């Protein structure tokens, strides 16, 4: 096997076929990026889900002085005796894992921290608009959450009971929707990529038919004749993957980070997650380019 010869034939082929090769690289890059983005969204949801499984599950927000909730009409915020009453009520529910009281000040501090990126909201929210709360961790979310909510709802001093899960559900639904849209587009683009690979290889083989017919005449083995085209297809796929990797890194750092500032409940993805997605993209890209090139050659390069 003469690598030098194969390499020079591949190089000649790529140059002659440059426009189509570039088109192929672009399509592969975009489709792999979209596929990768979909995978990143899936991972984001999974990570967030597993993180929050063991965290705070129920938040009982208490009345602030300016609260407009039905139960706070008295206006003046929750009184210490009401806080004590609520606390003992919660303690009576045996299935709570932990109950934590967050003071108004602590809550305000946390609010400022979480929305640090969102200046307008911080500026226009007064200190006494952030309520104190009881953060409750439950043993058995579904059933107990409903029960505790029922008990707390309407108790004096309780503004609202929020099941954190419902907020997260919105987050999950948003990401799932985005993921579905992205994956559908990715599939269309992958089909386009397959067709483009087939067409590019076919065009390349046609452009080189003079060389190919002489090669066959002179007794070059079939493998040797097909190899330069196969390598051409794989190289285009590889470059497409490299571009896709760059795009995916961009997606992770830009898109998902901005998602974080809107939804501070998400858990950011690790580098390992990104690497996993990039490897999956590479395998998909190589498989598609390799097999399509091979099948096209069998059809159009008569041996």
């Amino acid at each position, binding site marked *: *096997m*003469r690598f030098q*010869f194969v390499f020079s034939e591949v190089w000649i082929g790529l140059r002659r076929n440059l426009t189509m090769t570039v088109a192929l690289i672009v399509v592969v890059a975009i489709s792999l990026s979209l596929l990768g983005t979909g995978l990143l969204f899936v991972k984001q949801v999974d990570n967030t889900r597993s993180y929050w499984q063991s965290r705070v599950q129920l938040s009982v927000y208490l009345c602030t002085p300016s609260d407009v909730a039905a139960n706070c009409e008295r206006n003046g915020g929750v009184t210490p005796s009401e806080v004590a009453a609520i606390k003992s009520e919660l303690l009576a529910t045996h299935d709570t894992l932990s109950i934590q009281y967050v003071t108004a000040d602590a809550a305000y501090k946390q609010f400022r921290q979480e929305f640090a990126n969102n200046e307008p909201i911080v500026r226009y929210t007064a200190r006494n608009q952030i309520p104190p709360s009881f953060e409750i961790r439950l043993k058995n979310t579904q059933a107990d959450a409903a029960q505790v909510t029922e008990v707390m709802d309407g108790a004096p001093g309780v503004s609202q009971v929020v099941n954190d899960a419902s907020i997260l559900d919105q987050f999950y639904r948003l990401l799932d929707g985005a993921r579905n849209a992205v994956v559908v587009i990715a599939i269309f683009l992958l089909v386009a990529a397959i067709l483009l690979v087939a067409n590019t290889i076919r065009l390349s083989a046609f452009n080189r038919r*003079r*060389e190919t017919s*002489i*090669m066959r*005449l*002179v007794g070059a083995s079939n493998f*040797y004749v097909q190899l330069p085209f196969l390598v051409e297809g794989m190289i285009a796929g590889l470059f497409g993957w490299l571009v896709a990797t760059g795009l995916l890194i961009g997606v992770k750092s830009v898109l998902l980070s901005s998602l974080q500032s809107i939804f501070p409940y998400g858990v950011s993805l690790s580098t390992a997650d990104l690497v996993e997605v990039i490897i999956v993209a590479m395998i998909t890209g190589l498989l598609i380019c390799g097999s399509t090139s091979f099948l096209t050659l069998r059809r159009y390069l008569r041996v």
Partner: protein
Amino acid sequence: MIHFDNVTKTYANQSRPALENVSLDVEKGEFVFLVGPSGSGKSTFLRLVLKEERPTSGRIHVAGKDLARLTNWKVPHLRRRIGCVFQDFRLLPNKNVYQNIAFALEVIGKPRRFIRKVVPEVIDLVGLEGKRERMPDELSGGEQQRVAMARAFVNRPMILLADEPTGNIDPATSIGIMKVLDRINRTGTTVVMATHDAAIVDSMRKRVIELEYGKVVRDQSRGVYGQAY
């Protein structure tokens, strides 16, 4: 070397067979002219020897091997032992003389050292010394055909097939081409040449096989082009 046993070849969509019940033997080292009008089956004969086509019936043996039993992946090995020259030269326009000849060796995986040794020898054999770096469009028709012959011969094939090699070349230059072919034949290579060129055939007095409508009508050693009545 080449043995045809009752070979018939009919192409699809055609009623008349291109070759019909052809039986003949070509011995090692022979020089054979294949003559006949257009469509008589000369090119078909050559393609069957190369296994570019398969016979509709009959057996073909090349260098002792039954072509029918030859598997597809062994066909390249057969073709390496057969050199081919065509009327349209079939050179690669973007490669010079040396590279065109070297190409034939590169694609079958011969090492660079071997190529560097063998290609200049064969360039000298065909009389093109000093023209190594020329591109095909800088060569005359005769010179291009010599390059093609050098390429066909560089791997020392057992058989050299020529399909109307002097078709695009003037009579005077054709003589030069035939001298090269003769030189190649003297090294022991079996040569089968399909041709219309009556003058060449008459002047060389080699074995002549005449085809008409796919059938062998004459097989004469030291023959001439037309019927020698």
